[in-house]
């Protein structure tokens, strides 16, 4: 084996550095300058540098992927479990995505969270989150993956409920936690099935077993769908998407990092990791594709009417995640991961930009903003870059990845999906134009807020600028630099039917969306209001997010609570009154009898023995006279006897 | 003048043979010659304090811009002799409340070990009375007995100031004994012997043929050891700046308040004998004993070198006394336990590292 560089053989340090900083900040952060924030930033910066180094080595060919290392973890019976590091295209790109966004968000938070309480804890959670995400990304087996997955879920829960003084934040945290848990249940079942069938968690070994007949196509189908449940939960796909909009209760940097760029993408990554199963069971891929398509369309429509800037972005995130899932579903493994990468850059940018805006005007409601470009130029420009990228404006990074997805959908003959995808692209452009115009252009709608708005500090704008540059050029870099083909190579990529018409339709729908949006929202806003009135049924449906929350409430939460109440009544009236009270009565009767016996029989014996002991003790206490040397005298006597006994 | 060590040894042999030849049993002759040797040592050590007292008064005088004693003899050189005679002829007072026997024995207990301690000191080539293998430990152990004398003096006087002085003095001496012993440990580690003579002999070498390989010249460890040893020796002898136990202005005169005449002289003798002993030890341990510097060819005999260096150290003692202010009793203790003790441990560790390094390179 060729000389492998130190950084590669110690790749496990990439997640461990943030873990170390998390532990230190948790326990000693209080005494560190800036509450240990710089420590977290330093750790993630180191991880970032290591990731870049690894990427460079892969690109110049000095490191051949996949590169795997593993160490024994524990063993259960005959099954050894390992933890390990698997470096291949997806994991390296994810490493970069996670470390970059995490690094920028941590820098950004220095400014954004500056006055927040529990600053130290925030950084500790961020570091812990980064650790779990990186651990997941580097995992070479499902178990380690699952551990990272769950720790990440816990961190997400902590951070959503970070401002737990507000009830909404607490409730949102619970909702997120429980909803994703539902998906994880499927994931867990999938894991058990995998282990039951294959007997190992290691990705490579599983892949080897897939083709030697250990796993029947049926079994693969079941496993693929079960594991996909996890993705649905974590990546907020229909029908488990409800938690993500609510998760916007968390601080904005958290939304950017966890609920836009990294954690929610883990679901996509999971599907990518489970791809061998899907490859065996194409039916499952169809399910995936349609779930993704539905989600993409569904979320995009809701985003059209949302008034909260973060909600718009949240639905947009769901929609884009739908795109990625869609891409994977139609066989566009590379396209999905490519979109994941570019999306991470511009969605993090958009969230951080929104955070900057919120920081300035102290509200989330877009109708209370307007014309902010006059006050915050940097934010506007950078946000505009993100907006273009998300809308798929030609030659921005969103354009390349989205194009690739739609191209794949068309090229593999999924025409319905392609059509819906194009329509979603149109909607995306439309709602993003709406959001951008309402926030930054037009007339200031609330004078006070407008007057007090100001540009954010350096620590917030610099990450924005970095991400803006990435949003614009990343797609081009990866596409024309051949990174996509090199890093996301998959053994059996589908044959694509090239079609310029498809490309034109896709681009055209995006541009049309931009145009329509500009017409509607740059002009007189009253037309928009009128439109809403004309289409009020649809509008209301969208504003109420298709009543999904209400339906869930009626279908699941209410019955559960009613059942709980019924059980409570049963517990109180039946179990308590008959069993517990009845037993109580019997016990009392028994104890009365016992008490009589106790008084007359047992106590008599006790008193009697007590009397005997007292009398004997009175004799014995004379020996214990508190005169130590007297005791010693007796000891000496014993000693003399012993020696004498030995002699004679 | 030449080396007198072999000469003396020859003399003793001759003396023993002569005595044996004149009807004295061999054992008796042996004991007799030992007694002669011991007598010589005791006599010369008894003379040392007289010199030291004179030196002290003169040094004090010069440091304070005075002349010091000038009346008795040329330059007052017979002053201490006169003082000694005076002390010897004074009335021997035993206070009424005193514990009589303890009062009488105390000065002897304080003084006798000081003389015993000189047995293994290598005054020059062949001038070690008893070359004990454990001589360093022996000196520390025996000089520790003097502390008992101090306590006896404090107790036996039947005077609460004396008792307080005795307690303080003993506490101080016991405390400083620890870093003092520990400061010598690096030497024992380094030279692998506890014999003072052995250590002194081991230092008779040169770096690059020029710089003497005395322990004081070993970087860091030598200096730390020496400084700690010197400070502790000053404290052991209850001298300024560590003289809180007998501070004239605070405790009358500490444990020897009630002692007069010859008994006081014995305490006095003990103090100066210990100053001399500490200086001699320092020379043997840190300054190569009788190793000459400038004229290595033996032009100046080793014992002159030894005594010369010893008096240099003695001068440092006197110098300290007239330079530093007195320390408070709590400062004294915390200085010992919180400064000297940790640093002597550090020094031991450093020396260990040094030895390991030396063994591996």
């Amino acid at each position: 084996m060729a000389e492998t560089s130190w950084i590669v053989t110690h790749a496990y340090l990439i997640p461990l550095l943030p873990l170390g900083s998390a532990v230190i900040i948790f326990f000693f952060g209080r005494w560190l300058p800036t509450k240990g924030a710089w420590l977290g930033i330093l750790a993630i910066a180191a991880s970032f540098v290591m990731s870049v180094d690894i990427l460079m080595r892969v690109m110049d060919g000095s490191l051949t992927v996949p590169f795997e290392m593993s160490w024994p973890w524990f063993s259960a019976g005959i099954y050894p479990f390992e933890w390990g590091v698997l470096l291949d295209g997806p994991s390296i790109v994810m490493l970069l995505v996670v470390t970059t966004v995490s690094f920028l968000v941590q820098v950004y938070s220095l400014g954004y969270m500056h006055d927040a309480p529990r600053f130290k804890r925030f950084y500790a959670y961020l570091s812990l989150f980064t650790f779990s995400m990186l651990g997941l990304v580097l995992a070479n087996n499902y178990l380690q993956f699952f551990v990272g997955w769950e720790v990440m879920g816990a961190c997400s829960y902590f951070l959503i409920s970070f401002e737990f003084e507000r009830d909404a934040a607490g409730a949102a945290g619970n909702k997120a936690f429980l909803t994703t848990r539902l998906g994880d249940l499927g994931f867990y079942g999938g894991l058990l099935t995998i282990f039951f069938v294959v007997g190992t968690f290691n990705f490579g070994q599983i892949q080897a077993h897939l083709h030697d007949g250990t796993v029947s196509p049926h079994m693969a189908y079941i496993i693929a769908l079960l594991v996909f449940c996890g993705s649905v939960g974590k990546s907020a796909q229909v029908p488990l998407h409800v938690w993500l909009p609510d998760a916007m209760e968390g601080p904005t940097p958290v939304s950017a990092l966890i609920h836009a760029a990294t954690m929610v993408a883990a679901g996509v990554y999971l599907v990518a990791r489970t791809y061998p199963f899907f490859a065996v069971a194409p039916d499952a891929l169809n399910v995936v594709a349609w779930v993704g398509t539905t989600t993409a369309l569904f979320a995009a429509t809701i985003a059209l009417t949302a008034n909260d800037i973060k909600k718009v972005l949240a639905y947009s995130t769901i929609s884009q995640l739908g795109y990625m899932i869609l891409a994977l579903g139609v066989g566009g493994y590379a396209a999905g991961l490519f979109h994941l990468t570019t999306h991470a850059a511009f969605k993090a940018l958009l969230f951080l930009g929104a955070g900057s805006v919120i920081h300035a005007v102290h509200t989330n409601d877009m109708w209370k903003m307007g014309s902010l470009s006059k006050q915050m130029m940097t934010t506007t420009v950078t946000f505009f870059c993100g907006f273009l990228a998300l809308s798929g404006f030609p030659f921005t990074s969103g354009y390349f990845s989205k194009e690739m997805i739609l191209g794949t959908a068309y090229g593999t003959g999924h025409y319905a999906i392609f059509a819906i995808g194009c329509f979603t692209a149109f909607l995306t452009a439309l709602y993003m134009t709406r959001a951008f115009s309402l926030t930054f252009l037009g007339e200031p709608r609330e004078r006070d807020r407008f007057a007090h708005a100001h540009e954010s500090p350096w620590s917030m704008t610099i990450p924005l600028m970095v991400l803006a540059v990435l949003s614009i050029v990343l797609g081009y870099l990866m596409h024309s630099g051949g990174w996509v083909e090199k890093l996301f190579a998959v053994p059996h990529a589908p044959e694509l039917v090239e079609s310029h018409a498809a490309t034109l339709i896709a681009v055209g729908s995006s541009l049309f969306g931009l145009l329509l949006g500009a017409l509607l929202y740059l002009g007189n806003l009253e037309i928009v209001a009128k439109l809403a009135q004309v289409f009020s049924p649809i509008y209301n449906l969208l504003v109420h997010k298709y009543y999904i929350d209400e339906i869930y409430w009626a279908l699941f939460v209410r019955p559960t609570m009613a059942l709980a109440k019924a059980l409570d009544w049963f517990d109180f009236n039946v179990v308590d009154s008959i069993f517990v009270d009845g037993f109580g009565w019997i016990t009392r009767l028994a104890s009365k009898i016992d008490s009589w016996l106790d008084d007359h029989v047992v106590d008599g014996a006790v008193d009697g023995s007590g009397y005997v002991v007292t009398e004997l003790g009175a004799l014995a206490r004379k020996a214990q006279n508190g005169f130590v040397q007297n005791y010693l005298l007796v000891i000496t006597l014993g000693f003399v006897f012993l020696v004498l006994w030995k002699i004679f | 003048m030449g080396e007198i060590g072999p000469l003396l040894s020859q003399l003793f042999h001759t003396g023993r043979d002569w005595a044996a030849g004149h009807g004295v049993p061999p054992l008796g002759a042996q004991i007799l010659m030992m007694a002669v040797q011991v007598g010589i040592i005791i006599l010369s050590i008894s003379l040392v304090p007289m010199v030291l007292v004179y030196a002290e008064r003169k040094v004090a005088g010069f440091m304070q811009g005075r002349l010091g004693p000038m009346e008795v003899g040329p330059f007052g050189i017979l002053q201490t002799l006169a003082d000694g005679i005076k002390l010897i002829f004074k009335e021997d007072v035993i206070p009424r409340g005193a514990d009589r026997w303890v009062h009488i024995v105390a000065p002897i207990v304080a003084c006798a070990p000081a003389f015993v301690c000189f047995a293994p000191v290598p005054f020059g080539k062949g001038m070690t009375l008893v070359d004990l293998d454990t001589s360093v430990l022996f000196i520390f152990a025996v000089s520790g007995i003097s502390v008992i004398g101090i306590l006896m003096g404090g107790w036996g006087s039947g005077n609460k100031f004396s008792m307080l002085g005795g307690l303080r003095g003993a506490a101080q001496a016991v405390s400083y004994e620890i870093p003092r012993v520990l400061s010598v440990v690096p030497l024992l580690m380094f030279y692998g012997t506890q014999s003072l003579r052995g250590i002194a002999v081991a230092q008779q070498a040169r770096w690059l043929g020029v710089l003497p390989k005395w322990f004081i010249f070993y970087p860091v460890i030598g200096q730390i050891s020496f400084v700690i040893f010197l400070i502790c020796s000053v404290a052991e002898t209850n001298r300024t700046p560590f003289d809180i136990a007998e501070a004239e202005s605070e405790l009358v005169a500490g444990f020897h308040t009630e002692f007069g005449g010859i008994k006081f002289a014995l305490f006095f003798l003990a103090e100066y004998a210990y100053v001399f002993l500490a200086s001699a030890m320092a020379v043997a341990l840190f300054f190569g004993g009788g190793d000459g510097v400038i004229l290595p060819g033996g032009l100046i005999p080793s014992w002159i070198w030894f005594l010369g260096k010893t008096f240099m150290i003695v001068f440092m003692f006197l110098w300290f006394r007239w330079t530093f202010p007195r320390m408070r009793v709590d400062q004294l203790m915390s200085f010992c336990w919180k400064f000297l003790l940790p640093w002597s441990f550090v020094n031991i560790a450093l020396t260990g590292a040094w030895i390991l390094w030396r063994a591996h390179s």
Partner: protein
Amino acid sequence: MTLYHFLALSAVLFSIGIYGVLTRRNVLGILMSIELMFNAANINLVAFNYYLHPENLWGQGFVLFVITLAAAEAVVGLSLVLAIYRNIKSVYAENMNILHG
């Protein structure tokens, strides 16, 4: 000079120590008597070492431990005596009897 001489001497010292422990009223006296007993035992150890096993030094090593432990014992014992003295203003063993039956 035989081993028996030393053993007899140490037995006598030990018995004197026992007598002291049994009869001294003063706790300090008891502690001193205990030291006597320790030393008697130490003489035994060194003597056995010298006469029976001159090839090694285990006896002497053991004595070092005894001396060390005696120091520990003395220090703790004496600080206890001081603490008791502060409380009941007495160092007599028969006064320390608040736990008697």
